[in-house]
């Protein structure tokens, strides 16, 4: 199994979710994060104090998938989250050793 972590632009969340469920993915977990990268934020100015906004709001999606779905999932996320503009984000794929569904105790691909 693979554990996929995708950092995307917030307004793309629904599209990415739909793309993944389209592949048969049944669940995922989302976190509000701040991203630092090539994309530069605007400057916030408060009574003359200027703060370069270097951390931009992003959404992090974590989704565990069976190995055979991994490539399709990555592609689907990439396609759905893409705007072609800087700051679109990243997808990271990690090996997932084990998965458990808490409710039933099912493990591994049954648990996803």
């Amino acid at each position, binding site marked *: 199994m693979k554990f996929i972590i995708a950092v995307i632009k917030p307004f793309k969340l629904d599209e990415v979710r739909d793309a993944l469920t389209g592949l048969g993915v049944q669940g995922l977990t989302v976190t509000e994060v701040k991203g630092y990268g090539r994309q530069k934020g605007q400057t916030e100015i*408060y*009574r*003359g104090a200027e703060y370069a906004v270097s951390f931009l709001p992003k959404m992090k999606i974590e989704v565990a998938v069976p190995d055979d779905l991994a490539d399709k999932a990555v592609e689907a996320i990439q396609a759905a989250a893409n705007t072609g503009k800087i700051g679109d984000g990243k997808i990271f794929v990690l090996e997932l050793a084990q998965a458990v569904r808490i409710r039933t105790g099912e493990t591994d691909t049954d648990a996803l």
Partner: protein
Amino acid sequence: MALAGMAPALAFAQDAAAPAAAAAAAAAPAAPTISGGDTAWMLTSTALVLMMTIPGLALFYGGMVRKFNVLAMVMQSFAITCLVTVLWALVEYSLAFSAASDAADAKEFIGGFSRVLLAGMDPTGTHALAPTIPEPVFMMYQMTFAIITPALITGAFADRMKFSAMLIFITLWSLVVYAPIAHTVWHPNGYLAKLGVLDFAGGTVVHINAGIAGLVACLVIGKRKGYPNADFSPHNLVLSLIGASLLWVGWFGFNAGSALTAGPRAGMAMTVTQVATAAAALAWVFVEWAVKGKPSVLGIISGAVAGLVAITPAAGFVDTVGAFAIGIAVGIICFFSATSLKKALGYDDSLDAFGVHGIGGIVGAILTGVFAKMAVANSEGAFAATLKDAPDTKLGLIEGNAAQIIIQLEGVAFTIVWCGVITFVLLKVIDLVIGLRVDEEVERDGLDIALHGESIH
């Protein structure tokens, strides 16, 4: 406020027999009758001015700090409200106003002890400065001014003062700075009153006073750790906007209430307050837009507060044109004082207590000397009565009385010196005895949990 009818009397009395006029003014209300309309408005004004501090100022300041300091920030305004209430009833009112109708007690710099614990205050009696409302109402109204003034100072040393040190400082400051300055400006025999300083609703007593104390405080206590490089951006400007809005609404009680009656002068004071505030807010935000590229929420509310500050001394004296002029001037000047000046000089007046209240108060004091007009000042009350005998009196520069500007500057200078020196000494002594500043770690991780054991979730 108190001086609504008095200050001008003294202003022109310079040319004549000041003490005599003052005495006459103080003695004037031969048969004071309590007016229901005036009392209703002053009860309301008292509620409005209390609302300025809690929750108004608490939110205005609270929204500007970082999230882990917001409770500590709002706590200060609330605690000061309680503390000064007690001080005022115990002795501060007596020190500031006791002697108004008591010649023997009429010193130039301080009142007496005849109202300690409000003793001798007859519910149905009146104070010489407000002959148409019960003295308890006058006392309460003045209390709300004594509350907000020290609360304003807290913006200067936000995020780093011990709560205990703050309580001690404010206690002493109220007694040895606020009470005397209020007395000198508003008591007919007060030093600045006799000088002829025009201060309708407390530009000197409240704003310059608090602003200077704030400047001294932030110099003595030092900069916030990390200033100016770390991120001190306001955590929730919606809170600040609520605060600024309630300050604005409450300021009607502050300025129109300072007429001490529900009549024409209150109406004019309300009018010029509104106009100057709006003009200053727009001036600030348009300059900001031009200079920084964007009109900001913090900008427009700061401009509004600057306008409210500057029109305060002028409210019972100037007309609409004067209000526009004062508003536009202070909006532009305070924009620079709160941005460039602070940066240039390098002190950390965290929420611009000095930059807005100090500078704004000084601008207002001076421009009051420029735009004060007889037609407004004599629209009502004791002053009007006095003026009937001196219809040719000139008030501001605009009416040809350039000398008034000098008088106004004397008032400013006196306040700066008195307040600056004593504030400095008080803070230095407290710092030596118990320390002013929280530990570095507390400052870094936030005051809410460390000082008050609470946090925002």
